[in-house]
């Protein structure tokens, strides 16, 4: 495999659109020809040569072409868009649409990427060492076909709308994710090593989500159906199994309804006492319970009030789901 190295020499004043940085475009071209490939800054037409030092030679085909991009790439969009084969290595942070609609090959980003990376991806590997922002592996606006194949691995955190309308492929997030995971998904596999906030699997019709950390707030339209001992990418453990989204339509296979599934890892501590619900770590003493029920006697306690009250009086941070359960308890007592 032959390598072409692009080194940023002139920083663009505005953002640079460089979908031409792709093995498919470079293959069988001379460095000079590569330098003449288009790059756009706003409504101005430029060439890659205007911004990059170009060294080395590509292979005959995309498959045997490797591109190394270096320098300050934080204002470069569309690297590796629609690529079908070969390799791209980005040494540092870069902007939006990395590997958007990619069908094959490998992209390695050493730093962080912005939103819309791996959008509508159908194949290949997108490996991001740092963080990815929103809409990773998602669908383009209006399309019902998000990520359909291939693999995305993020070392750090991912933003909101991860795997929006995902249909297939696999995504692994090393860290935490923001709201809305796999919304409208109809297939695919997502592994989250860290924590998730809320709206995990909202409107999901089909697909699997594995969460090793905690889910701050489970969708009320998901149902806990028991624990399972499973192995996910080498790590095995007990996982709570939740099915949903019960607000959505669901297909049947062999008379059996297919649901989206969330596998939530049960923490060691809980495994001992056997878990039935999301994280039970926090429990109020009877005295605390007492003062809560007094504080809200005869009122219609809302989750946010009770949450705030408990925070102030006992300095305890509780999850909305736990609060709402607590409120039911108070109700039952009263």
């Amino acid at each position, binding site marked *: 495999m032959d390598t072409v190295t692009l080194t940023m020499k002139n920083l663009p004043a505005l953002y640079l659109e460089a979908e031409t940085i792709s093995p498919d475009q470079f293959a069988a071209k001379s460095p000079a020809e590569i330098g003449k490939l288009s790059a756009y800054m*706003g*409504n101005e037409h430029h060439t890659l040569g205007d911004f990059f030092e170009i060294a080395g030679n590509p292979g005959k085909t995309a498959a045997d072409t490797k591109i190394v991009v270096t320098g300050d790439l934080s204002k470069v969009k569309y690297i590796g868009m629609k690529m079908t084969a070969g390799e791209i290595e980005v040494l540092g942070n870069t902007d939006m649409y990395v590997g958007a609609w990619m069908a094959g090959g490998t992209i390695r980003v050493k730093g962080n990427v912005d939103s819309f990376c791996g959008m509508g991806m159908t194949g290949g590997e997108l490996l991001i060492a740092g963080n990815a922002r929103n809409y990773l592996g998602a669908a383009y*606006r209006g399309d*019902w076909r998000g990520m359909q194949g291939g693999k995305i691995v993020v070392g750090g955190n991912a933003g909101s709308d991860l795997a929006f309308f995902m249909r297939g492929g696999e995504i692994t997030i090393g860290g935490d994710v923001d709201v809305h995971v796999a919304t409208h998904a109809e297939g695919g596999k997502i592994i989250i090593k860290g924590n998730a906030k809320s*709206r995990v699997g*909202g*409107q999901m019709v089909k697909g699997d989500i594995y969460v090793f950390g905690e889910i701050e*707030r489970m969708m009320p339209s998901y149902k806990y159906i028991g624990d399972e001992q499973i192995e996910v990418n080498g790590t095995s453990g007990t996982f709570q199994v939740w099915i949903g989204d019960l*607000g959505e339509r669901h297909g049947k296979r062999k008379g059996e309804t297919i649901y989206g599934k969330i596998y939530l890892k049960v923490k060691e501590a809980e495994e001992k006492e056997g878990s039935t619900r999301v994280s039970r770590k926090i429990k109020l003493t009877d005295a605390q319970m007492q003062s809560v029920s007094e504080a809200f006697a005869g009122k219609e306690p809302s989750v946010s009030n009770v949450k705030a009250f408990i925070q102030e009086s006992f300095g305890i941070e509780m999850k909305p789901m736990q609060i709402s359960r607590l409120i039911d308890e108070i109700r039952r007592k009263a």
Partner: protein
Amino acid sequence: MTRTITDVVCPFCGTLCDDLIVTVSEDGKKLLDVENACAIGAEKFLHTQASDRVTRPRKIQEDGSSVEVSYDEAIEYTAQLLVNAKKPLMYGWSSTSCEAQSVGSEIAEQVGAIIDNTAAVCHGTTLVAVQNVGIPSCTLGEVKNRADRIIFWGCNPAHAHPRHMSRYSIFPRGYFTGKGHKNRKLIVVDPRTTDTSSLADVHLQVEQGADYELLQALRAAVRGQELTGDIIAGVPKEKVYEAADLLKSGRFGVIFFGMGVTQSLGKDHNIDAAIMLTKDLNEYTKFSIIAMRGHYNVTGSGQVLGWQFGFPYSVDLSRGFARYNPGETGSIELLKRKEADAIVVLGSDPGAHFPVRCVREIANLPSVCIDPHITPTSEICKLHVPVAFVGIEVGGNCYRMDNVPIDSRKVIEPPEGMMTDEEFLRAVNTRVSELKAA
């Protein structure tokens, strides 16, 4: 002697009431009275009579003071600014006519601009949701003639669309709704008790920012599924099931929704879920959903951009063809990320309605504000071009919140020598063509 003009269209909100009666002086120069308008609409008409109205363009000096310049100078400045920019943003387009919007499109195409309307901070996420899951809807007359279930979700028409309830949704008697509001059940979903919720049969005081959870719970309830947790997004589970039954039991229901869902956590997903709830309910009865479009002709801007470029807002023409992705080409993102290098604002007030970080960026850019009023935007732009009030001093087509087009009327003459925004844009367009040709 005075003249009265009937069937006047109100240029304030997306309700486009078209039954106003305006009294003007014989010479058509003074506006004396407005009937049938809401407080806000009436004020809009009467403000044209303000004695301290700015009637000539003003350039803002270094020291913040302003000097009057001629329209010709303003045209030259605006054309130069657009032609010299690499990625100019042309924002607003709501308080103007479709005719003016069309000229704006021509300019934007010539200079390779990004053209965006106030949906960006209003119902943009609604348009995104519609792109994801569609929208079963109807005209407001259908609501008046058929509806027996009305849901106001995250909107407060008593304040934002003052005549909506009396003209279309709650009180009017229609063909199949002879009993008016007596046969209509009203559900209001709002984290606050509001002047609208006080009229409601049912008020679901949702936990702010948890509309998505409540909507999906409602959808599950409609399907007879069991819900997890006894309080759903601040609402007791039983109330969720009751609400689901109330919706299914109607013959024709409508969900009206507003900023409460478009601007809260989840944004398009909240609307997405509301639309899917509407779709689900069509398996049991007839249901529609309508966005409470706020700004006069923001809907029209979406229509014009739609048939000319294919996208309803945040349209990026910089590459010579149209692209769209609000998360990248939307005004807020462009300003936050410093992607644009010039801005022209027409028929809108981002200075008042954008977050401070974006406002600061506008103040730093070469900028023009085309607006009849003195506004926060006019105060931070390098050039303020006052123009005639569209819908009062000049007519033109506009689209109602349900996309029904109505041709608005001119009722009085603008102050002597004042341009309309369409005239100003045409002049700029001509000048841009000359500069491009050179």
